Protein backbone atom coordinates (compact mmCIF):
# COMPACT_ATOMS: atom_id res chain seq x y z
CA UNK A 1 0.00 0.00 0.00
CA UNK A 2 1.03 3.63 -0.21
CA UNK A 3 3.18 5.01 -3.01
CA UNK A 4 3.24 3.00 -6.23
CA UNK A 5 6.82 2.64 -7.45
CA UNK A 6 7.37 1.95 -11.13
CA UNK A 7 9.60 -1.00 -10.29
CA UNK A 8 6.77 -2.69 -8.46
CA UNK A 9 4.12 -2.13 -11.10
CA UNK A 10 3.64 -5.76 -11.90
CA UNK A 11 3.67 -6.59 -8.25
CA UNK A 12 0.72 -4.41 -7.33
CA UNK A 13 -1.11 -5.15 -10.56
CA UNK A 14 -0.75 -8.87 -9.97
CA UNK A 15 -1.90 -8.46 -6.39
CA UNK A 16 -4.91 -6.51 -7.59
CA UNK A 17 -5.76 -9.24 -10.11
CA UNK A 18 -5.40 -11.97 -7.52
CA UNK A 19 -7.52 -10.13 -4.97
CA UNK A 20 -10.21 -9.24 -7.51
CA UNK A 21 -10.38 -12.74 -8.89
CA UNK A 22 -10.97 -14.34 -5.51
CA UNK A 23 -13.30 -11.63 -4.22
CA UNK A 24 -16.58 -13.09 -3.05
CA UNK A 25 -18.54 -9.92 -3.69
CA UNK A 26 -17.36 -9.59 -7.29
CA UNK A 27 -18.21 -13.23 -7.77
CA UNK A 28 -21.76 -12.31 -6.74
CA UNK A 29 -22.16 -9.08 -8.70
CA UNK A 30 -19.64 -9.08 -11.52
CA UNK A 31 -20.87 -11.54 -14.13
CA UNK A 32 -21.88 -8.78 -16.56
CA UNK A 33 -18.80 -6.64 -15.95
CA UNK A 34 -16.80 -6.79 -19.20
CA UNK A 35 -14.58 -3.73 -19.42
CA UNK A 36 -11.07 -2.61 -20.21
CA UNK A 37 -9.71 0.03 -17.86
CA UNK A 38 -6.41 1.53 -16.87
CA UNK A 39 -4.76 2.90 -13.78
CA UNK A 40 -2.11 5.47 -14.56
CA UNK A 41 0.16 8.02 -12.97
CA UNK A 42 3.03 10.19 -14.10
CA UNK A 43 5.39 7.25 -14.41
CA UNK A 44 3.23 4.27 -15.38
CA UNK A 45 0.09 3.16 -17.10
CA UNK A 46 -1.32 -0.31 -16.57
CA UNK A 47 -4.20 -1.75 -18.60
CA UNK A 48 -6.58 -4.31 -17.20
CA UNK A 49 -9.02 -6.45 -19.14
CA UNK A 50 -12.02 -7.59 -17.09
CA UNK A 51 -14.29 -10.42 -18.19
CA UNK A 52 -17.28 -11.44 -16.07
CA UNK A 53 -15.85 -9.53 -13.15
CA UNK A 54 -12.42 -11.21 -13.32
CA UNK A 55 -9.17 -9.58 -14.40
CA UNK A 56 -8.01 -11.76 -17.28
CA UNK A 57 -5.21 -9.64 -18.69
CA UNK A 58 -2.70 -7.10 -17.40
CA UNK A 59 -0.58 -4.95 -19.66
CA UNK A 60 1.97 -2.66 -18.04
CA UNK A 61 3.59 -1.67 -21.35
CA UNK A 62 0.56 -0.86 -23.48
CA UNK A 63 1.11 -0.15 -27.16
CA UNK A 64 -1.18 1.68 -29.55
CA UNK A 65 -3.16 -1.50 -30.08
CA UNK A 66 -4.05 -1.83 -26.39
CA UNK A 67 -7.17 0.21 -25.78
CA UNK A 68 -9.40 0.87 -22.79
CA UNK A 69 -12.98 1.94 -22.20
CA UNK A 70 -12.02 4.25 -19.37
CA UNK A 71 -9.32 4.79 -16.82
CA UNK A 72 -8.22 6.43 -13.61
CA UNK A 73 -5.30 8.81 -13.56
CA UNK A 74 -3.65 10.69 -10.72
CA UNK A 75 -0.23 11.87 -9.55
CA UNK A 76 1.65 9.46 -7.27
CA UNK A 77 0.88 11.49 -4.16
CA UNK A 78 -2.86 11.27 -4.83
CA UNK A 79 -2.73 7.51 -5.35
CA UNK A 80 -0.72 7.28 -2.12
CA UNK A 81 -3.46 9.07 -0.20
CA UNK A 82 -6.14 6.94 -1.84
CA UNK A 83 -4.30 3.82 -0.68
CA UNK A 84 -3.30 5.16 2.73
CA UNK A 85 -4.83 2.94 5.46
CA UNK A 86 -5.53 6.11 7.45
CA UNK A 87 -8.01 6.98 4.68
CA UNK A 88 -7.61 10.76 4.63
CA UNK A 89 -10.94 12.46 3.96
CA UNK A 90 -11.87 13.26 0.33
CA UNK A 91 -9.23 10.74 -0.78
CA UNK A 92 -11.02 7.88 0.94
CA UNK A 93 -13.19 6.65 -1.91
CA UNK A 94 -13.41 6.69 -5.70
CA UNK A 95 -16.40 9.00 -5.97
CA UNK A 96 -15.03 11.32 -3.28
CA UNK A 97 -11.97 11.86 -5.45
CA UNK A 98 -14.13 12.32 -8.56
CA UNK A 99 -15.92 15.17 -6.81
CA UNK A 100 -13.22 16.75 -4.69
CA UNK A 101 -9.73 15.96 -6.01
CA UNK A 102 -9.02 17.84 -9.26
CA UNK A 103 -5.74 15.98 -9.80
CA UNK A 104 -7.66 12.72 -9.97
CA UNK A 105 -9.26 12.08 -13.34
CA UNK A 106 -11.84 9.60 -14.52
CA UNK A 107 -11.08 9.50 -18.23
CA UNK A 108 -12.56 7.94 -21.35
CA UNK A 109 -16.05 6.54 -21.76
CA UNK A 110 -17.68 7.63 -18.52
CA UNK A 111 -21.00 6.15 -19.63
CA UNK A 112 -19.34 2.74 -19.79
CA UNK A 113 -17.88 3.38 -16.36
CA UNK A 114 -21.29 4.35 -14.95
CA UNK A 115 -22.82 1.19 -16.40
CA UNK A 116 -20.29 -0.78 -14.40
CA UNK A 117 -20.06 1.52 -11.40
CA UNK A 118 -20.90 -1.06 -8.78
CA UNK A 119 -18.25 -3.53 -9.84
CA UNK A 120 -15.68 -0.85 -10.61
CA UNK A 121 -16.21 0.71 -7.20
CA UNK A 122 -15.53 -2.69 -5.70
CA UNK A 123 -12.39 -3.21 -7.81
CA UNK A 124 -11.03 0.22 -6.88
CA UNK A 125 -11.84 -0.40 -3.22
CA UNK A 126 -9.81 -3.60 -3.42
CA UNK A 127 -7.03 -1.57 -5.07
CA UNK A 128 -6.87 0.56 -1.92
CA UNK A 129 -5.81 -2.44 0.12
CA UNK A 130 -3.53 -4.57 -2.08
Amino acid at each position, binding site marked *: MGTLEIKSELDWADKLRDAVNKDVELEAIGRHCDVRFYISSTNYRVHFVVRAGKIVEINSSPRIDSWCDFGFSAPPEVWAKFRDPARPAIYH*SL*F*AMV*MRVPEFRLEGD*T*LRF*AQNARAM*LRIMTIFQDV
Partner: protein
Amino acid sequence: MTSFEPIRGGYVWVTVDGVDYRIYYEEAGSGVPMLCLHTAGADSRQYRHILNDAEITSRFRVVAFDMPYHGRSLPPKNWWLTRYELSLKFYIAVIRAVWAAFEMEQPVVLGCSIGGYIVLPLAHDHAAELRGVIGLESIAKSAGRYNDFLHHGAIHGGEFVASYTFGLNSPFSPEEGPRENWWIYAQGGPGVYSGDTAFGREFDVRDQLKDIDTTKCKVSILSGEYDYSALPEVSKSVADAIPGSRFVFMPKMGHFPINEDYPTFRPYLLAELDYMLAD
Protein backbone atom coordinates in the same frame (compact mmCIF):
# COMPACT_ATOMS: atom_id res chain seq x y z
CA MET B 1 -35.19 -15.60 17.62
CA THR B 2 -38.49 -13.78 17.31
CA SER B 3 -38.87 -10.21 18.42
CA PHE B 4 -41.02 -7.22 17.58
CA GLU B 5 -39.72 -3.70 17.38
CA PRO B 6 -41.72 -0.95 19.12
CA ILE B 7 -42.24 0.90 15.82
CA ARG B 8 -45.72 1.54 14.48
CA GLY B 9 -46.15 2.12 10.75
CA GLY B 10 -49.09 3.70 8.97
CA TYR B 11 -50.33 5.98 6.25
CA VAL B 12 -51.61 9.52 6.40
CA TRP B 13 -53.14 11.51 3.56
CA VAL B 14 -52.10 15.13 3.25
CA THR B 15 -52.99 17.75 0.67
CA VAL B 16 -50.33 20.06 -0.71
CA ASP B 17 -51.18 22.69 -3.31
CA GLY B 18 -54.46 20.93 -4.01
CA VAL B 19 -52.82 17.54 -4.63
CA ASP B 20 -53.41 14.57 -2.35
CA TYR B 21 -50.44 12.51 -1.16
CA ARG B 22 -50.46 9.18 0.64
CA ILE B 23 -47.59 9.39 3.09
CA TYR B 24 -46.04 6.45 4.85
CA TYR B 25 -44.72 7.06 8.33
CA GLU B 26 -43.23 5.20 11.25
CA GLU B 27 -43.49 6.35 14.82
CA ALA B 28 -42.44 5.35 18.30
CA GLY B 29 -42.39 6.81 21.76
CA SER B 30 -44.13 9.64 23.53
CA GLY B 31 -43.26 13.09 24.71
CA VAL B 32 -41.88 16.04 22.82
CA PRO B 33 -42.71 15.57 19.12
CA MET B 34 -39.76 15.02 16.82
CA LEU B 35 -40.11 14.84 13.05
CA CYS B 36 -37.33 13.06 11.15
CA LEU B 37 -36.39 13.80 7.53
CA HIS B 38 -34.53 11.25 5.43
CA THR B 39 -31.77 11.91 2.92
CA ALA B 40 -32.15 12.47 -0.82
CA GLY B 41 -33.33 9.40 -2.69
CA ALA B 42 -33.80 7.36 0.49
CA ASP B 43 -36.62 6.82 2.97
CA SER B 44 -37.54 6.63 6.63
CA ARG B 45 -35.87 3.26 7.14
CA GLN B 46 -32.75 5.30 7.82
CA TYR B 47 -34.30 6.22 11.18
CA ARG B 48 -34.86 2.69 12.45
CA HIS B 49 -32.13 2.99 15.06
CA ILE B 50 -33.53 6.18 16.53
CA LEU B 51 -37.07 4.77 16.48
CA ASN B 52 -35.80 1.79 18.46
CA ASP B 53 -33.78 3.80 20.97
CA ALA B 54 -35.65 3.74 24.28
CA GLU B 55 -33.52 6.52 25.71
CA ILE B 56 -34.96 8.74 22.98
CA THR B 57 -38.48 7.36 22.67
CA SER B 58 -38.99 7.62 26.43
CA ARG B 59 -38.83 11.39 26.00
CA PHE B 60 -39.79 12.03 22.38
CA ARG B 61 -42.62 11.03 20.11
CA VAL B 62 -40.50 10.24 17.07
CA VAL B 63 -42.14 10.30 13.64
CA ALA B 64 -40.20 9.54 10.47
CA PHE B 65 -41.97 9.67 7.13
CA ASP B 66 -41.24 8.95 3.50
CA MET B 67 -41.44 11.93 1.20
CA PRO B 68 -43.76 11.46 -1.81
CA TYR B 69 -42.07 9.21 -4.43
CA HIS B 70 -39.83 7.74 -1.71
CA GLY B 71 -40.04 4.45 0.16
CA ARG B 72 -43.68 3.44 0.63
CA SER B 73 -45.11 6.90 -0.15
CA LEU B 74 -46.52 6.65 -3.65
CA PRO B 75 -46.24 9.45 -6.16
CA PRO B 76 -49.41 11.52 -6.63
CA LYS B 77 -52.07 10.99 -9.28
CA ASN B 78 -50.74 11.49 -12.83
CA TRP B 79 -47.16 11.22 -11.64
CA TRP B 80 -46.13 9.77 -14.99
CA LEU B 81 -46.88 13.04 -16.75
CA THR B 82 -44.36 15.08 -14.80
CA ARG B 83 -40.62 14.77 -14.31
CA TYR B 84 -39.98 14.58 -10.59
CA GLU B 85 -38.02 17.54 -9.27
CA LEU B 86 -38.15 18.48 -5.62
CA SER B 87 -38.59 22.18 -4.98
CA LEU B 88 -37.88 24.15 -1.84
CA LYS B 89 -41.49 25.30 -1.63
CA PHE B 90 -42.92 21.79 -2.03
CA TYR B 91 -40.46 20.26 0.43
CA ILE B 92 -41.40 22.73 3.14
CA ALA B 93 -45.10 22.36 2.38
CA VAL B 94 -44.97 18.57 2.76
CA ILE B 95 -43.07 18.76 6.03
CA ARG B 96 -45.51 21.26 7.45
CA ALA B 97 -48.49 19.24 6.23
CA VAL B 98 -47.17 16.14 7.99
CA TRP B 99 -46.42 17.92 11.23
CA ALA B 100 -49.90 19.48 11.11
CA ALA B 101 -51.49 16.09 10.44
CA PHE B 102 -49.83 14.70 13.57
CA GLU B 103 -50.88 17.80 15.51
CA MET B 104 -47.31 18.36 16.62
CA GLU B 105 -46.85 21.37 18.86
CA GLN B 106 -43.39 22.90 19.01
CA PRO B 107 -41.69 19.90 17.43
CA VAL B 108 -38.01 19.28 17.02
CA VAL B 109 -37.20 18.67 13.36
CA LEU B 110 -34.23 16.39 12.73
CA GLY B 111 -32.98 16.13 9.16
CA CYS B 112 -30.03 14.54 7.42
CA SER B 113 -28.46 15.64 4.13
CA ILE B 114 -31.22 17.47 2.21
CA GLY B 115 -33.21 17.02 5.41
CA GLY B 116 -30.41 18.87 7.13
CA TYR B 117 -30.51 21.58 4.50
CA ILE B 118 -34.26 22.15 4.72
CA VAL B 119 -34.24 22.63 8.50
CA LEU B 120 -32.45 25.93 7.90
CA PRO B 121 -35.28 27.70 6.03
CA LEU B 122 -37.73 25.98 8.37
CA ALA B 123 -35.97 27.54 11.34
CA HIS B 124 -35.85 30.86 9.55
CA ASP B 125 -39.49 30.98 8.48
CA HIS B 126 -41.19 29.10 11.33
CA ALA B 127 -39.03 29.64 14.41
CA ALA B 128 -42.01 30.44 16.63
CA GLU B 129 -43.63 27.09 15.80
CA LEU B 130 -40.56 24.98 16.51
CA ARG B 131 -38.71 23.91 19.63
CA GLY B 132 -35.60 23.45 17.56
CA VAL B 133 -33.92 21.89 14.59
CA ILE B 134 -31.06 19.45 14.34
CA GLY B 135 -29.32 19.57 11.00
CA LEU B 136 -27.07 16.67 10.11
CA GLU B 137 -24.62 17.48 7.32
CA SER B 138 -26.30 20.83 6.76
CA ILE B 139 -25.23 23.27 4.12
CA ALA B 140 -26.94 26.47 3.01
CA LYS B 141 -26.07 26.25 -0.67
CA SER B 142 -26.08 23.36 -3.09
CA ALA B 143 -22.99 21.15 -3.27
CA GLY B 144 -23.68 20.18 -6.89
CA ARG B 145 -24.46 16.48 -6.73
CA TYR B 146 -26.58 16.38 -9.90
CA ASN B 147 -25.47 14.63 -13.08
CA ASP B 148 -27.41 13.12 -15.97
CA PHE B 149 -26.21 9.59 -15.23
CA LEU B 150 -28.35 9.55 -12.09
CA HIS B 151 -31.38 8.96 -14.32
CA HIS B 152 -30.28 7.59 -17.68
CA GLY B 153 -31.77 4.97 -19.94
CA ALA B 154 -28.47 3.18 -20.48
CA ILE B 155 -27.54 2.96 -16.78
CA HIS B 156 -29.01 0.92 -13.94
CA GLY B 157 -30.15 3.84 -11.83
CA GLY B 158 -30.46 1.90 -8.60
CA GLU B 159 -26.96 0.49 -8.71
CA PHE B 160 -25.40 3.69 -9.96
CA VAL B 161 -27.08 5.98 -7.42
CA ALA B 162 -26.31 3.57 -4.58
CA SER B 163 -22.68 3.33 -5.64
CA TYR B 164 -22.42 7.05 -6.28
CA THR B 165 -23.52 7.76 -2.71
CA PHE B 166 -21.66 4.88 -1.07
CA GLY B 167 -18.42 6.79 -0.61
CA LEU B 168 -20.28 9.38 1.43
CA ASN B 169 -20.14 6.88 4.25
CA SER B 170 -17.09 6.89 6.45
CA PRO B 171 -14.55 4.16 5.66
CA PHE B 172 -14.50 3.52 9.40
CA SER B 173 -18.20 2.81 9.79
CA PRO B 174 -19.10 -0.81 10.45
CA GLU B 175 -19.71 -2.36 7.05
CA GLU B 176 -23.33 -3.30 7.62
CA GLY B 177 -24.41 0.35 8.01
CA PRO B 178 -23.15 1.64 4.67
CA ARG B 179 -24.25 -1.59 2.99
CA GLU B 180 -27.77 -1.15 4.34
CA ASN B 181 -27.76 2.40 3.08
CA TRP B 182 -26.61 1.14 -0.34
CA TRP B 183 -29.62 -1.16 -0.41
CA ILE B 184 -32.03 1.64 0.51
CA TYR B 185 -30.60 3.85 -2.22
CA ALA B 186 -30.73 1.06 -4.78
CA GLN B 187 -34.47 0.78 -4.15
CA GLY B 188 -35.20 4.39 -5.00
CA GLY B 189 -37.55 5.00 -7.92
CA PRO B 190 -36.20 6.04 -11.32
CA GLY B 191 -35.14 9.66 -11.22
CA VAL B 192 -36.00 10.19 -7.58
CA TYR B 193 -32.48 10.79 -6.25
CA SER B 194 -31.83 12.85 -9.35
CA GLY B 195 -35.01 14.86 -8.69
CA ASP B 196 -33.97 15.41 -5.09
CA THR B 197 -30.61 16.78 -6.17
CA ALA B 198 -32.56 19.21 -8.36
CA PHE B 199 -33.68 20.72 -5.07
CA GLY B 200 -30.04 21.15 -4.24
CA ARG B 201 -29.45 23.05 -7.46
CA GLU B 202 -31.84 25.83 -6.50
CA PHE B 203 -31.06 25.77 -2.80
CA ASP B 204 -29.29 28.83 -1.43
CA VAL B 205 -30.41 30.19 1.94
CA ARG B 206 -27.13 31.73 3.03
CA ASP B 207 -28.78 35.12 3.39
CA GLN B 208 -31.29 33.72 5.88
CA LEU B 209 -28.81 32.29 8.37
CA LYS B 210 -28.03 35.46 10.32
CA ASP B 211 -31.75 36.07 10.90
CA ILE B 212 -32.61 32.68 12.40
CA ASP B 213 -33.89 33.38 15.91
CA THR B 214 -32.30 30.74 18.11
CA THR B 215 -33.99 32.20 21.20
CA LYS B 216 -37.20 30.77 19.74
CA CYS B 217 -35.88 27.84 17.75
CA LYS B 218 -32.69 26.13 18.90
CA VAL B 219 -30.29 25.09 16.17
CA SER B 220 -27.73 22.30 16.28
CA ILE B 221 -25.57 21.48 13.28
CA LEU B 222 -23.58 18.22 13.22
CA SER B 223 -21.08 17.23 10.58
CA GLY B 224 -19.12 14.09 9.81
CA GLU B 225 -15.44 14.16 8.91
CA TYR B 226 -15.87 12.02 5.79
CA ASP B 227 -18.78 13.92 4.28
CA TYR B 228 -17.27 15.11 1.01
CA SER B 229 -20.60 16.49 -0.22
CA ALA B 230 -21.46 18.73 2.71
CA LEU B 231 -17.90 19.36 3.81
CA PRO B 232 -17.42 19.81 7.56
CA GLU B 233 -15.89 23.24 7.10
CA VAL B 234 -18.93 24.30 5.10
CA SER B 235 -21.34 22.99 7.72
CA LYS B 236 -19.33 24.80 10.38
CA SER B 237 -19.60 28.02 8.39
CA VAL B 238 -23.37 27.54 8.40
CA ALA B 239 -23.39 27.23 12.18
CA ASP B 240 -21.02 30.17 12.54
CA ALA B 241 -23.47 32.30 10.58
CA ILE B 242 -26.42 31.45 12.86
CA PRO B 243 -26.13 33.41 16.13
CA GLY B 244 -26.60 31.13 19.12
CA SER B 245 -26.37 27.86 17.22
CA ARG B 246 -24.26 24.85 18.14
CA PHE B 247 -21.83 22.99 15.92
CA VAL B 248 -20.57 19.48 16.51
CA PHE B 249 -17.81 17.87 14.46
CA MET B 250 -17.96 14.08 14.37
CA PRO B 251 -14.60 12.44 13.64
CA LYS B 252 -14.65 9.28 11.54
CA MET B 253 -18.31 9.85 10.63
CA GLY B 254 -19.71 10.27 7.14
CA HIS B 255 -22.79 11.78 5.53
CA PHE B 256 -25.28 9.31 7.05
CA PRO B 257 -24.76 9.31 10.81
CA ILE B 258 -28.32 8.14 11.47
CA ASN B 259 -27.70 4.73 9.99
CA GLU B 260 -24.09 4.26 8.85
CA ASP B 261 -22.79 4.02 12.42
CA TYR B 262 -25.55 4.70 14.92
CA PRO B 263 -23.62 3.62 18.06
CA THR B 264 -20.94 6.20 17.33
CA PHE B 265 -23.49 8.85 16.39
CA ARG B 266 -25.75 8.22 19.38
CA PRO B 267 -23.82 10.17 22.06
CA TYR B 268 -23.66 13.18 19.78
CA LEU B 269 -27.38 12.98 19.14
CA LEU B 270 -28.32 12.46 22.78
CA ALA B 271 -26.37 15.55 23.77
CA GLU B 272 -28.24 17.67 21.24
CA LEU B 273 -31.58 16.18 22.26
CA ASP B 274 -30.79 17.09 25.87
CA TYR B 275 -30.07 20.59 24.62
CA MET B 276 -33.40 20.65 22.80
CA LEU B 277 -35.24 19.65 25.98
CA ALA B 278 -33.45 22.10 28.27
CA ASP B 279 -35.30 25.26 29.26
